[in-house]
């Protein structure tokens, strides 16, 4: 198995005094689907932002065996909590083709890739519509399509089920199950994660609470209570 993401001794503080993340290390291997769980304020999103270099943290971040750089980040995609942060063009198709065109891909092949990505998330017929005209569930799927369009090898999802109803959650879960790439999902929605992840990394107040096999973790009610997840 090839290492996809290695975080070694990551520490971060917003104000320079109180540590938001303390000495966190984690490793993801190719094809793994991992849940990053923790109560509100545990540091899940902050850890993702630190890994991506959006926040400057102490420690080492390696993607695909090499230090984080522009080239390795091209193989990574992110789905943010709020789909509006990713989708802003006049149509979904434009949203999906933009990063490809920006990288120098021809319009024809960009459109083919965009249609394929939309078809994967079941939104092929809505390519002409702007994201704001879609339901929240559809917007989430569109955000995933915009992440998939660049054929990433590692996909980060930050609170993918926030504000989603039951049906949209189920649809999103079955979509993520079908994806054949490495996933790191930051969420405290255990019901959602149960169906997708094989391993869980738990955070508790900015510290690592350990890495667990998914089945064992979801049955350990004492630990779940300690972590503030139930």
């Amino acid at each position, binding site marked *: 198995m090839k290492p996809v993401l290695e975080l070694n001794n990551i520490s971060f503080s917003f104000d320079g005094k109180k540590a938001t993340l303390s000495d966190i290390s984690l490793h993801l291997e190719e094809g793994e689907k991992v849940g990053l769980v923790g109560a509100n304020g545990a540091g899940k999103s902050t850890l993702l932002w630190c890994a*991506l270099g959006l926040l400057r943290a102490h420690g080492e971040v390696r993607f695909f065996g090499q230090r984080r750089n522009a080239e390795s980040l091209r193989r990574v995609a992110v789905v943010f909590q709020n789909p509006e942060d990713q989708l*802003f063009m*006049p149509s979904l198709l434009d949203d999906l083709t*933009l990063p490809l065109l920006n*990288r120098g891909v021809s319009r024809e092949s960009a459109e083919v890739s965009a249609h394929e990505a939309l078809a994967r998330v079941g939104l092929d017929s809505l390519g002409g519509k702007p994201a704001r005209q879609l339901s929240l569930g559809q917007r989430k799927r569109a955000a995933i399509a915009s992440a998939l369009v660049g054929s990433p090898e590692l996909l980060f999802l930050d609170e993918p089920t926030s504000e989603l109803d039951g049906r949209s959650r189920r649809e999103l879960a079955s979509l993520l199950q079908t994806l054949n790439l490495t996933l790191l999902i930051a969420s405290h929605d255990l019901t959602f994660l149960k169906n997708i992840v094989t391993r869980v990394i738990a955070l508790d107040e900015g510290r690592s609470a350990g890495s667990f096999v998914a089945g064992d973790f979801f049955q350990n009610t004492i630990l779940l209570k300690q972590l503030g997840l139930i």
Partner: protein
Amino acid sequence: MNAARFILVVALVCALILLLVDGNFVGLAASAVTAFLARALLLRDFRKCIRHALPVFLFCAILVVLEFIAHRSLSNLALKTFVCYAIVVLSVHLMPWTVMVRSVSPRSCLFAPVLFLLFVHHFTAILQEETRRSLTAYRMAVPHPFRRGGVRALAFSLDSLFCRCLLRAERFYAAQTLRGIAE
């Protein structure tokens, strides 16, 4: 049709610049009224158009009052402000955004300004949405805005709006950076 709209927008912006330089009162007033009515016709909702213009109109009115207090005379400043608003809003309405985006290649030098305009367009929508949420929450929490605590609550509501907008802007920028667009 789209080319005609684009030419019309360019003509409107050029006319605006000429009007501002010339500063003729009648020309400014006529342009403001025409642009305002044209947008009302496009929206097919005169009330909505007035509602949109009300904050700018209030701003202009305050400007007139302050100018009068300071100099005991009036300039065209408030009228120029309103003309800018009316013509820019009309131009934004007329601009064929989708066609414009598709016709500009990401390799062209026009791409960055077009992208910037789209970012502004998108973020204005976010700001509008956040403002609406804040005001709704404020109205529900403070049914009598001029009674005790009303003004203080409004100040805190605006403060929270500002913080939320900053947060949204930060996330938006982060998302675009990761997609390789914002660099």
